[in-house]
């Protein structure tokens, strides 16, 4: 029987890809293991191998097609003795195919996450914007700062020849060479210490952790060596360094690869901690982080790397560390979040608006220092607050915000603050359990209903 060859998922977060090139044509015989096509994911171009043997009966998706959803039929494989008619039978009906093509547009995170309009502040009137993914914005920020300052260099696992495990450093090796884009051995503890030494020695390292989960091995150098030396040296010796990489849950990668470290690092005096959501903030904050004379923890999220936002076409665009952004004004409740949590906050705000509840949405952007004033002023106006984050609930950022609101705006509160967080469990692998373990927009909605007594 003819077999449909489906568009493969080639990474945990891949939902669609580009069928870059067919390496077989109709009528070719393929053996299991033969490379049939090159498929470009959001991270890399990958070779796609045949699993079964047979003859390529029909190619359904032409090479060069972008946005092919995972599990779309891309070709039909005939078994021995089957004719072309079998290929036609196996090919999905045209109507179905049209449906398949429609799906990715509606279901990609880019569409679901990106707000209709991206609010910008302190941007001169008349500024033009370019739709840019978070991934490209991060790369642009590094490239611009590396052009401006010879002392800035990037080091980490696979940042150079591989072009970045998540493609964030794509093209940097070509432009800056291997003196400044340095592939390290897999040795987080060692290369983090080494980078701290290089910062003591007058350089400005950017250390990429493939994920912040791996930075656990380097925690001692981040905390004891990088964050504390300025203080311990009586102000003589600072550590101008950026530690950046993916943080938080990706998709189906299990407990050891899915954890938000925002609350961990935010506790440490001597560090700055930022966690941007939009591409503009990712770019502006990363540029600020690289210029900062202090160690900066820069928490990214793989789930939004491919999301596009408006980024201003400005020569020297930066976003100050320590300043929150009000994404939308509202009257009835303050939703405060950061990083990917903003996705839930903004979705909830949209849905609440249809129910007549006006939510003010604040993106903290920086978790050390925290822009308390923006939050407190908002709470004084709305008298209600829900915090949203993907991290664990115990000693979360939300807990800290609740305490601060209690101290500074107790008399303004009409309801207790509710913290929406990830659940108090190691991240499960099973798809249904993983979904349950993360914070959801429904939970944010329910929390808002509670604090507004609806």
């Amino acid at each position, binding site marked *: 029987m003819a077999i449909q060859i489906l568009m493969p998922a080639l990474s945990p977060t891949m939902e669609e890809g580009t069928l870059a090139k067919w390496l077989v044509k109709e009528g070719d015989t393929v053996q299991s293991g033969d490379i049939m096509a090159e498929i470009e994911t959001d991270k890399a171009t990958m070779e796609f191998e045949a699993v079964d043997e047979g003859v390529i009966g029909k190619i359904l998706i032409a090479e060069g097609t972008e946005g092919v959803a995972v599990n779309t039929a891309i070709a039909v494989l005939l078994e021995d003795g089957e004719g072309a008619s079998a290929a036609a039978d196996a090919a999905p009906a045209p109507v179905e195919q049209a449906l398949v093509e429609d799906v990715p547009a509606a279901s990609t995170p880019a569409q679901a996450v990106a707000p209709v309009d991206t609010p910008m502040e302190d941007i001169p009137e008349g500024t033009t914007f370019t739709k840019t993914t978070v991934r490209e914005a991060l790369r642009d920020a590094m490239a611009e700062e590396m052009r401006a300052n010879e002392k800035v260099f990037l080091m980490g696992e696979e940042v150079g020849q591989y072009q970045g495990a998540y493609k964030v450093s794509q093209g940097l090796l070509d432009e800056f060479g291997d003196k400044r884009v340095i592939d390290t051995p897999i040795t987080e503890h060692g290369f983090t210490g080494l980078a701290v030494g290089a910062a003591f020695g007058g350089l400005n390292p950017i250390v990429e952790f493939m994920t912040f989960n791996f930075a656990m091995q380097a925690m001692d150098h981040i905390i004891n*060596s990088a964050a504390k030396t300025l203080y311990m040296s009586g102000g003589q010796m600072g550590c101008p360094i950026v530690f950046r990489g993916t943080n938080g849950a990706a998709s189906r990668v299990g407990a050891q690869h899915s954890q938000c470290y925002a609350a961990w690092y935010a506790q440490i005096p001597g560090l700055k901690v930022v966690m941007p959501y939009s591409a503009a903030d990712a770019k502006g904050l990363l540029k600020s982080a690289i210029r900062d004379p202090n160690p900066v923890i820069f928490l990214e999220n793989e789930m939004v790397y491919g999301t596009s936002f408006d980024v201003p076409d400005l020569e020297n665009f930066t976003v100050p560390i320590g300043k929150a952004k009000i994404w939308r004004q509202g009257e009835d409740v303050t939703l405060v979040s950061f990083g990917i949590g903003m996705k839930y906050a903004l979705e909830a705000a949209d849905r609440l608006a249809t129910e007549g509840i006006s939510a003010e949405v604040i993106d903290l952007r920086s978790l050390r220092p925290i822009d308390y004033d923006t939050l407190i002023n908002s709470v004084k106006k709305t008298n209600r607050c829900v915090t949203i984050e993907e991290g664990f609930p115990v000693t979360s950022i939300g807990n800290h915000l609740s305490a601060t609101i209690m101290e500074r705006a107790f008399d303004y509160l009409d309801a207790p603050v509710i913290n929406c967080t990830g659940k108090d469990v190691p991240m499960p692998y099973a798809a249904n359990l993983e979904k349950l373990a993360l914070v959801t927009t429904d939970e944010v909605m329910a929390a808002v209903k509670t604090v507004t007594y609806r």
Partner: protein
Amino acid sequence: MAAKKQARKTNTSGEELLEHYKNMLMIRRFEEKAGQLYGMGVIGGFCHLYIGQEAVVVGLEAAAKEGDSRLTSYRDHAHMLACGMDPKGVMAELTGREGGYSRGKGGSMHMFSSEKKFYGGHGIVAAQVPIGAGLAFAEKYNGTDNVSFTYFGDGAANQGQVYEAFNMASLWKLPVVFVIENNQYAMGTSLQRASSSPELHTRGEAFMIESEAVDGMDVLAVKEAGVRAVAHCRAGKGPYILGVKTYRYRGHSMSDPAKYRTREEVQKMKDERDPIDHVRDMLEQGKHATTDQLKAIDKEIKKVVSKAADFAQTSPEPSIDELYTDILR
């Protein structure tokens, strides 16, 4: 009394020997004073003395040049004195006073000098090793011919990050001299009880790092090895390991009851291998200095140390405003 090891025959000039003598004696007298102040409660917390190991840092500093950097563990007073930091500032840091190198905020284990390129003073065992490789990375990046002297003990030599640093230093040909100060006890655990191989200088073989074993009680042997190591690094040949065997006379820290070794063992080292006595013998045998001259040196050093101790006790405690300064730049 056990037989003292004969002073080696040397062509080293009297001038140089005197310099070594003064530098080592300075460290010893300083550390004795620090021990005394600790006993009086003037110095708090942890205090790790270098007495017995003086030849190591003095010999290696004699191989250093302007612009080289150095860093070590928490047993760091001697390294600071040897690279020319002011004894007053070091002692005042031990007492936690405003006049200390870190204005009282670092303490015995955490001191730094940008001016002398002394990069600490590290309280976490072996943390300084990759940092030292990073300092060398910066020298190479900046195209200098300076080296990083990265000191660590026999205890630290068993930490994984040491080997991560060895690998990268060798892979990237970083100009770092790894100095393993093997004083034979990691706190209370002897080398034999903690290391599968006692030959610590061979620990870099798997990373193709050149190395040698050095007699750390002989300042001239240390210096000669240091000169070879530094030449190797400055020539762009990558790192070099010196496995320096030495001995600490005092406990791991001031609060160490030292039950893990006998008094006789310590006394034997003092009698037979004392690094300062050794240089003194060379000076006397070579007729480079009279007993009176040596006494005058001793007196002068005592005066410097005494002044440092006075300063450290009279310098005020840091202003309470200092609590919140130097957290960020």
